[in-house]
């Protein structure tokens, strides 16, 4: 029998109103309608959510390990980008 994998989808679930959708995992489905239903059955069967997003995994573009140096390391020595770096003068009226 031919074993062809269905397309892969990433699943995001909002656990409560007011919170952000969080990535909870992935699943295989033939299209968006089926992916939403499968996500409901696989990821929200214990009251985990009030809203679901699904997106084709292939549509997510991610940074790679080799991007680390250029992308993230330059931020390491730039402490002045944190507000806590600055001392507020005592006599400043806020």
């Amino acid at each position, binding site marked *: 029998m031919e074993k062809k994998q*269905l397309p892969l989808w990433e699943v995001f679930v909002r656990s409560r109103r007011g919170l952000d959708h969080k990535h909870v995992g992935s*699943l*295989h*489905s*033939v299209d968006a*309608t*089926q992916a939403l*239903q*499968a996500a*409901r*059955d*696989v990821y929200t*069967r214990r009251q985990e959510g009030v809203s679901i997003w699904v997106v084709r995994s292939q549509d997510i573009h991610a940074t790679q390990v080799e991007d680390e140096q250029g992308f993230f390391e330059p931020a390491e020595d730039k402490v002045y980008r944190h507000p806590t770096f600055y001392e507020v003068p005592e006599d400043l009226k806020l």
Partner: protein
Amino acid sequence: MRDAHFKYVLRLADNALILGQRLGEWCGHGPFLEEDVALANTALDHVGRARMLFSHAGELEGQGRDEDDLAYRRDEREFRNFLICELPIGDFAFTMIRQYLLDVYHLDLFERLQASLDEGLSGIATKAAKESSYHVRRSREWVKRLGDGTAESNLRLKTALDELWAYTPELFSGDMVDDKVIADGIAPELAVIEESWNREVEATLKLATVDIPKPLGWEAGGGREGLHTEHMGRLLAEMQFLQRAYPGLEW
């Protein structure tokens, strides 16, 4: 006559339990992981509503029988489910089209049962209707996919529908029990449910590019008098094994 009331609720419970048992057979055998979990969820929805209905039936009967007595300590002839519920699971197309035909029936039935004068039953119906509305979404989607899919999936769906069609009139053929509970405002009219069932099923089958089977000249019936198909005994043997071998066992 309280007897009809008890029998009516017992029939609803038997349909839910036997269908749930059949769906549960898919656990670990679904066509792919996501569908396997979904089938098991649906099975548990049915077993869950069976439990509530059995407890309620036991109270109506007033003989001290609880949900376990009714589920595990009755013999084949005492079960009152529709024959369509007990048929073996067949292939995936058979399971899904059977599910669809019954999901549509149950959604409409439980929505109407929310107006029942039996408050206990109306409460159970509210919960069951929510579940059924999702069940219909799922099974309708599969019927469309299988029918409008490949030549193979279309053929399987068509074959399953042909096999099942003669079992559907039983859903709408009332007897004295139905007449009584309908007259008492406990249950809805069957003709109304039949009409909307026909409309919904026809619309979906059209999208699935499958024709409604022609009348075969015979109709299955007898489930509600306790006259079952040859498959029922085996189903019960498996389902009731533990209570039969170790009566009263708890875990």
